[in-house]
């Protein structure tokens, strides 16, 4: 074969090889990637940060129907409801209250309604020390027996909390104003002493701006800026609490506790913040620790997700019980 022919055959072979390679690359070497099944997105309800229960204070703030809490629609005033006990000295819950399952305390030791409820005034709760508390202050009742947990709760170490870890020094932000028109309305009408106090802090042009405010308005409404300015100026001042100013405004437990401590510095800012939030419960959103009843059912309090501890005493389990289980805590 001539050199020419050999060259021709070689180059044809090389061309064919290259062409084959090109085809192979273009068709991915005959391999197809298996299609991965698409991952399902998580249900957004799973990400809800709401607590499992709502407290009485939550219901008041939300303007919900509170007729269920009006005991004297059915009960007679000044006539304590009689308690009926079964042969084991357990409370028989009336059918009208059949949603209540009693389970507070081992050995049935706390299964008496009037350990917590005030029998002469059913709208109140009664801790053992003689105080009378409203339903909104139920955490004080729980804390009157569950001291270590209550102290943890006050420190922020027990239970759920949301909002700001930066207690004192974070100024009010726009997203904390839940109801701008309500707030402006209260301020310009000076409908209560706190609103009158806040109104006095505004300059004349600011007051004029609020007088002219008409809802609904866009999110960047200047009225919002004015309100935020006023609130943030106030929280930097000495304590805004005066009994006359806050008469008729129920203070949250955190507020009352902090007020007693006469705080200074960051804690004073935090106190003023809390006072303003108490004065405007519907207009400003709170960032606070949740109450006991936001997670625990007061009648059968075990945290719903934990299986109850077995045995007569959680620290002294020595084996399976011989007899029937007592009422579970």
């Amino acid at each position, binding site marked *: 074969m001539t050199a020419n022919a050999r060259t021709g055959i070689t180059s044809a072979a090389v061309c064919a090889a290259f062409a084959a390679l090109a085809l192979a690359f273009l068709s991915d070497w005959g391999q197809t990637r298996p299609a991965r099944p698409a991952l399902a997105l*998580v249900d957004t309800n799973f990400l809800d940060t709401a607590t499992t229960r709502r407290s009485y204070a939550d219901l008041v703030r939300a303007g919900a129907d509170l007729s269920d809490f009006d005991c004297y629609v059915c009960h007679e005033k000044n006539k304590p409801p009689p308690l009926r006990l079964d042969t084991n000295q357990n409370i028989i819950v009336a059918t009208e209250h059949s949603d209540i399952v009693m389970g507070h305390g081992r050995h049935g030791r706390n299964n008496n309604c009037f350990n917590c409820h005030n029998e002469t005034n059913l709208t109140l709760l009664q801790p053992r020390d003689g105080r009378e508390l409203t339903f909104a202050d139920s955490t004080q009742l729980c804390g009157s027996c569950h001291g270590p947990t209550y102290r943890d709760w006050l420190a922020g170490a027990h239970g759920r909390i949301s909002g700001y870890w930066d207690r004192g020094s974070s100024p009010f932000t726009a997203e904390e104003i839940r109801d701008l028109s309500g707030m402006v309305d209260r301020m310009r009408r000076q409908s209560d002493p706190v609103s009158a106090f806040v109104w006095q802090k505004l300059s004349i042009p600011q007051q004029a701006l609020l007088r002219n405010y008409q809802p609904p308005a866009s999110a960047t409404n200047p009225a919002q800026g004015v309100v935020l300015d006023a609130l943030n100026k106030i929280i930097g001042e000495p304590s805004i609490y005066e009994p006359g100013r806050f008469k008729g405004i129920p203070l949250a437990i955190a507020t009352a506790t902090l007020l007693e401590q006469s705080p200074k510095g960051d804690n004073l800012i935090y106190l003023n913040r809390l006072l303003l939030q108490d004065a405007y419960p519907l207009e400003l959103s709170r960032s606070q620790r949740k109450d006991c009843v936001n997670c625990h059912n007061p009648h059968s309090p075990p*945290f719903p997700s934990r299986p109850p501890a077995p045995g007569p005493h959680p620290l002294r389990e020595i084996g399976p019980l011989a007899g029937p289980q007592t009422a579970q805590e």
Partner: protein
Amino acid sequence: MGRRSFLRTSAVLTTGLAALAASLKPLLDMNDFPTMERFLQKYYKEMTPQDMARVLKRIEDEVEQQYGLRPHVRDLKPMDGVEYVYCLNLTRCIGCRKCVHACVAENNESRDPEIQYIRVLRLPDGSLGTDKADHFYASKSVPEKGFFYMPVQCQQCKNPPCVKVCPVHATWQEADGITVVDYDWCIGCRYCEAACPYWARRFNFTKPSIPKDRLNPDMAYLGNRPRRQGVMEKCHFCIQRSRAGRYPACLEVCPAGARKFGNILDPNSEVSYILKSKRVFIQLKEEMGTSPRFFYYFDV
């Protein structure tokens, strides 16, 4: 050269080039080329506020173009006198993994493949060894008897091995204790992932896919802005929230109140209270000398 040799040479060359071009076909799948602006971007610590403003605008433009939603990207600086610490109550954790998914939603992590900064371990009661841990438990309901649950995420170590090994200083620890990653500086070598004893670091093997309606538009430069293929990411204590004074998303969603977060330099914070009064016993893998800022404890 004669006609024949010319034709032969050109035939070989053409088919050769065709084969070469065909072999480079995977490059056609690349669609995430850096713009010149991003390519020439300065190192984070050398940027002036004007540089940063331009960069933030670039990011907002890019996100708007890709997701149809204009985000609000901020460069939040550490607060003075703040060092973050996370405490986790192992008596309370029920292993529901809500924290995992809240984190994914808050931090714009890729959904497919799904990147999750938090990994919840299920350990049998009485053991603290992570060798007995089940990372992939899938029980019908939690908590299960005989087990306890331990969520693990970036521990924001005081002595972080990931920072030590990064060849380009794309990751460093800030004054408030958070170890951050500059996603535009990371070269994706994954040394930090190898160095981390907790597997806190996640790598984007593919372009992250975030459904448009689930994008969180409240972003931070060192935090939850959308990442690219080929960069590392990890828990940053929700920097867009914590540096604005708020709790991280994992804490707010926890139904059991197992998570506690705050400023350890503040004696009145809940984390100070916990470290003083609780049986805080674990820093995970204490023997590695990383000195994590994540404390596990048991409660009554």
